[in-house]
């Protein structure tokens, strides 16, 4: 498998981004929904710290991934109706948008709440804004709505991939698979 994508399939870097980020997303979303209900205490703070550290990791990854994606060619889409092409493009743009929105709104929420931000006890990051109760509410809403939207769009993306694989019998899913080469 080549590092870079070709007209026929995705390169290994893109596949690594795709599946690595999916694993981190499953982890961060699970932690995210679990942690909010925890009682106030040191454990809660540590789990929030983990959530924030994974979120910052995902922010770095989506920046690198977007740059990488812009720097290489996209494999041609298999034959499909034009509306499906449009939906596919829209879904992918929405995925990228939400992958940026989630860490940034989380960071903003954290800053507006007046909490520190530290990446795995290694690096402290500056606040995006001053502590502000109104901004806090806004950022929190963005983060929560964004989470729901991300789960929805990922589900749509997944269903579409399964539909291409099992119903259309095309290469869409196989060429993103982590364990196969470009050629089928």
């Amino acid at each position, binding site marked *: 498998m080549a590092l870079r994508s070709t007209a026929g399939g995705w390169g290994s870097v893109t596949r690594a981004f795709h599946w690595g980020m999916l694993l981190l997303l499953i982890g961060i979303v699970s932690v995210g929904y679990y942690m909010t209900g925890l009682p106030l205490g*040191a454990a809660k*703070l540590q789990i929030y710290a983990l959530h924030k550290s994974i979120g910052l990791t995902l922010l770095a990854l989506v920046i690198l991934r977007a740059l990488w994606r812009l720097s290489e060619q996209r494999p041609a889409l298999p034959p499909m109706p034009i509306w499906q092409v449009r939906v596919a493009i829209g879904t992918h743009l929405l995925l990228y948008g939400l992958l940026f929105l989630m860490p940034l709104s989380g960071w903003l929420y954290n800053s507006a709440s007046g909490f520190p931000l530290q990446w795995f006890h290694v690096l402290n990051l500056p606040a995006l804004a001053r502590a502000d*109760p109104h901004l806090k509410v806004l950022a929190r809403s963005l983060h929560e709505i964004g989470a729901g939207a991300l789960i929805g769009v990922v589900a749509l993306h997944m269903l579409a991939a399964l539909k291409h694989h099992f119903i259309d019998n095309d290469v869409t899913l196989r060429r993103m698979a982590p364990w196969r080469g470009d050629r089928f």
Partner: protein
Amino acid sequence: MKRVVAVFRAAFVALAFVATLAVAAPVYPVVAARSSLAFSGTQQGERFNGVFRAFEARIQYAPDDLAGSHFDVTIPLKSLDSKNSERDAALATAEWFDFTHFPNATFRTVAMHMTATGVVADADVTIKGRTRRIAFPFTWKGSASGATLDARVTLDRLDYGLGTGDWADDAMVGRKVEVTVRLVLGPVVPVEVPAAKPTLKAVGQPKAKR
């Protein structure tokens, strides 16, 4: 005539002496709006600042009468504000200040002495029922309209049982907490005449039944 002058002089000296005793270390009123009791700690490697919005301080001080000088401060802990509602809520719990059982912290000087760098008070700080004696160096600046008192001390939160259990970890919340005191003190209040007190009481309180 000389005798009269001598008598007057003696009386004056005696009066002045008594007056000196009475106001040796005057009590200064605190100008609350311009005074602050702030603290600064670290959380996850980042500094945060907070204040106690309310405190009552009785500041009796004369630079030339350290033995007669005394600071007595009571801090209602629920006036704590660290500019973060979640953190404030956590600080109220039993693992931190435990507001329910220990609503106040106190600070009382037991002695003051002059050192090479200035006046240092030995003070008993009581938080959460635990008392520690600390050295409290401070800067006093007297002026025509009153005085200012500035001090900065560093406390170890674990000395007072603040942040027990899983919170004790220094990496999450630093043990050292810097406390900064800035008191702006108004002009000294004239000493009350003791005889005036019963009159005030009689006016202010209902008459006792016979």
